[in-house]
């Protein structure tokens, strides 16, 4: 693929809000312990709940007081991340575009269960009261692209707006989509990444599915990056934090159609293989893999196994979900944020295989979905 410049990032996570707080947490190891939620949902009915919540998240600090009432938490996380990202990339200053025009900047990001909070809230009104009383201002939040739509409205991004629903792979898939949109000249820069918010229905679903037992707390967050053509970045003199060099995305269904959930090492292997080939690199060129693996279970085994098949057993692998939680649609984006930070000279953490490299120049970021899907991206320090 044609290399793309990554010229800025914005992050809102349990490790902190904004690039400095995020970097400081990874540098100093100030990783907050999972704790009962204080803002994402009322945890009185779930005394056992320990989650990786974004601490002290006050969207009005970033967005002002007006217009927030009808936005759900997912949207607020993404809008704040987008604002931080656009300023970090130098596209905006004091809320205004100072480089490129809104018509040349797009938005393309993933989420796994973005509309769940809104649907459940309105369902509650419909079931317990009457569907005639649902709040029409919140109805638009029930579609899976609503958070993306709001980001474009708040940040005036007009080139295109694309939401991606591919579970945990959505954030890295957004890179693949944006790369094609940039290739076709639909934008000069596209905000890519993903977000996912904690909510009561999400917690209940995860608990009932038995997915809280693996040791990785359910988390939330959003991370967005400006993916830009090299020409655009050069023309405006942007600082290039890293380059996207290769992408691979694949699906591998189960052998029998009797099962739905499917951890597919074959998909992971092919995604990594394709991404590294796409980058014109060899396995030996990779300094570190930043995986989406949790601490244990079939999916972790499939992801690590697929990576090993593609790159061999010796490549160091990090699993940073132990730092910021299981953040689903945001996980690939937060993995990317960790990779960028480690490229800046901060020592990698959460190493689950091999030894932490001292010089991180080239990274593969991976995510594995619940149904046989996998995505990988190759990044190189700018």
């Amino acid at each position: 693929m044609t290399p793309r410049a990554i010229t800025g990032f914005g992050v809102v996570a349990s490790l902190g809000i904004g690039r400095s707080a995020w970097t400081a947490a990874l540098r100093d190891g100030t990783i907050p312990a999972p704790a009962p939620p204080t803002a994402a949902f009322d945890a009185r009915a779930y005394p056992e709940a320990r989650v990786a919540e974004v601490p002290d998240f006050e969207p009005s600090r970033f967005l002002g007081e007006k217009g927030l009432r009808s936005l759900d938490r997912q949207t607020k996380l993404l809008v704040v991340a987008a604002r931080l990202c656009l300023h970090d990339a130098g596209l905006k200053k004091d809320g205004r575009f100072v480089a490129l025009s809104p018509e040349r900047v797009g938005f393309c990001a993933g989420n796994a269960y973005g509309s769940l909070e809104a649907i459940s809230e309105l369902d509650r009104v419909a079931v317990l009261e009457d569907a005639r009383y649902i709040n029409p201002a919140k109805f638009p939040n029930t579609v899976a692209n609503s958070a993306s739509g709001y980001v474009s409205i708040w940040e005036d991004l007009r080139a295109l707006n694309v939401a991606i629903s591919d579970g945990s792979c959505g954030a890295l898939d957004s890179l693949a989509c944006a790369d094609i949109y940039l290739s076709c000249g639909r934008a000069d820069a596209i905000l890519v990444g993903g977000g996912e918010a904690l909510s009561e229905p999400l917690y209940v679903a995860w608990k009932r599915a038995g997915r809280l037992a693996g040791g990785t707390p359910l988390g939330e967050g959003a991370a967005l990056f400006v993916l830009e053509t090299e020409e655009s970045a050069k023309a405006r003199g942007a600082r290039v934090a890293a380059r996207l060099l290769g992408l691979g995305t694949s699906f591998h269904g189960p052998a029998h159609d009797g099962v739905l959930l499917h951890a597919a090492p074959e998909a992971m292997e092919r995604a990594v293989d394709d991404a590294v080939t796409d980058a014109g690199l060899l396995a030996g060129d990779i300094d570190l893999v930043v995986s989406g693996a949790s601490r244990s279970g079939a999916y972790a085994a499939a992801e690590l196994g697929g990576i090993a098949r593609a790159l061999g057993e010796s490549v160091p692998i990090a699993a940073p979900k132990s730092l910021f939680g299981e953040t689903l649609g945001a996980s690939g984006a937060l993995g990317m944020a960790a990779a960028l930070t480690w490229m800046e000279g901060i020592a990698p953490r959460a190493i689950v295989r091999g030894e932490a490299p001292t010089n991180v120049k080239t990274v593969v970021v991976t995510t594995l979905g619940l149904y046989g899907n996998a995505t990988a991206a190759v990044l190189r320090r700018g």
Partner: protein
Amino acid sequence: MLPCTVGSIKRPVSPPWDSASPAKASVSRVFITGVGAVSPVGLGRGEFFRALAEGKSGIATIESFDGAALGREFAGEVKGFRPRDHLTAAEARHTGRCSAMTVAAARMAVADSGIRPEHLRGPRTAVVIGTTMGEADVIADLDHAWIKGGASAVPRSLLPRYGSTLLSIHVARAFGAQGMALTLPGACAAGNYAIGFAADLIRAGKADVVVTGAAEMLQELQFSGFVRLAAMAPEKCQPFDLHRQGLLVGEGAGIVVLESEAHAMRRGARLDAEVGGYGLSCDGYHITRPHAEAVGSIAAMRGAIERSGITPDAVDFVNAHGTGTKANDAAEAKVMFDVFGARRVPISSVKSTLGHCMGAASALEAVACVMTLETGIYPPTVGYETPDPECDLDVVSTTGRTGKADVLLNNSLAFGGYNAVVCFARPGVLPPPVLGHPGTPS
């Protein structure tokens, strides 16, 4: 002479681009080689379009829930759809209604294309499906169980079946596709978003075949939402009519099989249509209202024309977004005036008979466009009786019309300012895409 056929004409043709020698700097053309539809007016290519052409309405009293209690009782519901007619027992067990309609329409499209199963298996086949809410019945069942019985009442077996990503996953599984499997929630422009991106995947060389389109199911919560937004008409959806009172919602799935030129030629495929360029934009303005000056919509429509290598003069017919709301239709009329000037290009909205199938709308309308290219029939806007000075357009009224159908535009100008306009053309009509041309991957 190439061993392909165009539309329903079962004879080999020599497409004009064959001698144009664009080999050095060309990108692949993208063809639709099969279509499938699950719709309120019928299932499958023939039944679907015959009904549209005849102006047969799929609008009827809702059977799946009590709409009257919500103040409105009509919608474009797919009646008599039995998943097991199209899905295996295991597939039917794993799917909600939305995915079931998606897989069914995909099977119809694949059968219609005549593509052999072995051509779909493997990493060169991708799946891109649009929607707004995906498996809405599954989430409703989960939510209702939780709300009525608490967390312990949430049925574990249903949990893996929720998530709009499953629409593309189920289709990929059905055909053994191993390329990108992606669900694109793009509001009521989702179908065009999906088909456009799928075409880009082929042009960029990332896939040879993409099964693409969109699906949506009618569900009580979403229906209530439109009622509460005061967007719902009481009985009839009359796009562009002076007395229009709003939209009616519908449901269904529209799927098309896209193939690269080389792949289609290699297997001697019938070419139903060429996917030309498409325009995308975002208003960045309001979550439900169209932009007052329709700048984003204009950019999307102009983008589709420019990226197809044509001028507005080449467009024969426009399939309207045409929801039947005052604001949307007036905004779309503005777009038409801006793009076509004094030239009155025929326009029609099949939402008058299907209802607004939301995420599935533009995908079903893409199938309708393919059929218009094949037959020259412009399907009618049923119920269009009194022209609205604010929408002074050449609306194809209730009787329908036949006309030149070489190049069509399919408009999607959705809530949230999601604008996507796709150009479809008879194979051989559009100039060959070349590298460096707007809209082709560099």
